[in-house]
């Protein structure tokens, strides 16, 4: 028998299972992979032969990894509803970060763009994405980062106009 070849067959099968099982919650994924691994070990230990043909037939009888995972996901077979693992929307995080950093208003504008886009993505994700609060925080900071300096500029301009442009008043505009 050629152990290298049979090991490779088993490894390839387990890798396929591993990839297919990404659809499962992490703890159940780990459990399933471990149980299939144990099954293979047990079968090889008890089997009359473990040459390549025997290993192929063993894996064939186990069935396609995708089928095993769909059996684990099948709602008609599952009493418990599987909660999909939620992911935080990346743009929402970026939006908040840019909102905080401000970057002379450029960050704020980007925070608004990314914030609104993140909200749309989260809404369309059908509950599989979180981060709505982060996106809202990014949007609020974005507007604040634009409106507060803008009001400062307008206020300063009014102050200058009211003072009749008298030369003694320092121009506050440059400090913002």
């Amino acid at each position, binding site marked *: 028998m050629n152990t290298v070849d049979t090991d490779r067959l088993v490894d390839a099968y387990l890798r396929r299972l591993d990839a297919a099982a990404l659809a499962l919650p992490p703890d*159940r994924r780990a459990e399933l992979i471990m149980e299939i691994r*144990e*099954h293979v070990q047990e079968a090889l230990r008890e089997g009359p032969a473990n040459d390549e043909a025997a290993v192929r037939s063993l894996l064939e*009888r*186990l*069935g396609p990894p995708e089928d*095993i995972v769909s059996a684990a996901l099948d709602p008609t077979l*599952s*009493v*418990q509803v599987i909660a999909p693992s939620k992911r935080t929307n990346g743009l929402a995080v970026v939006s908040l970060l840019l909102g905080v950093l401000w970057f002379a208003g450029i960050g704020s504008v980007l925070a608004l763009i990314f914030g609104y886009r993140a909200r749309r993505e989260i809404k369309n994700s059908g509950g599989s994405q979180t981060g709505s609060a982060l996106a809202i925080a990014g949007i609020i900071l974005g507007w604040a980062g634009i409106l507060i300096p803008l009001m400062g500029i307008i206020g300063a301009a009014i102050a200058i106009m009211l003072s009749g442009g008298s030369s003694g008043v320092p121009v506050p505009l440059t400090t913002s």
Partner: protein
Amino acid sequence: MELGRARNAVTQLRRGTLEYCVLALLRDGRRYGFELVRTLSAADGLLVSEGTIYPLLSRLRRDQLVTTSWQESEAGPPRRYYQITAIGQRALADFRDEWARFRDAVDALLTQGEG
């Protein structure tokens, strides 16, 4: 075509009854996964893809119909054994009653007018 139809109906029945077949196998003592698979496979076509037994066992465990324990084996790594719980015994007893009623009713209809 009609044969495929009948086969499909039986496949649905197999799916629905498999977990009780597993519980029945555990009624008289614990077994490990591979042992369960081998026994179920030996019984007429109960398992199409053997690997699908593991998601089923996982579900039975989450529903507290079975528990697992580890036991050293003579050779090789320790084995994961499945054993039936009191809840599992109860579910199995209920199913036996229901199944007997169902089987008798279907048999009576199928053999109606024969002999």
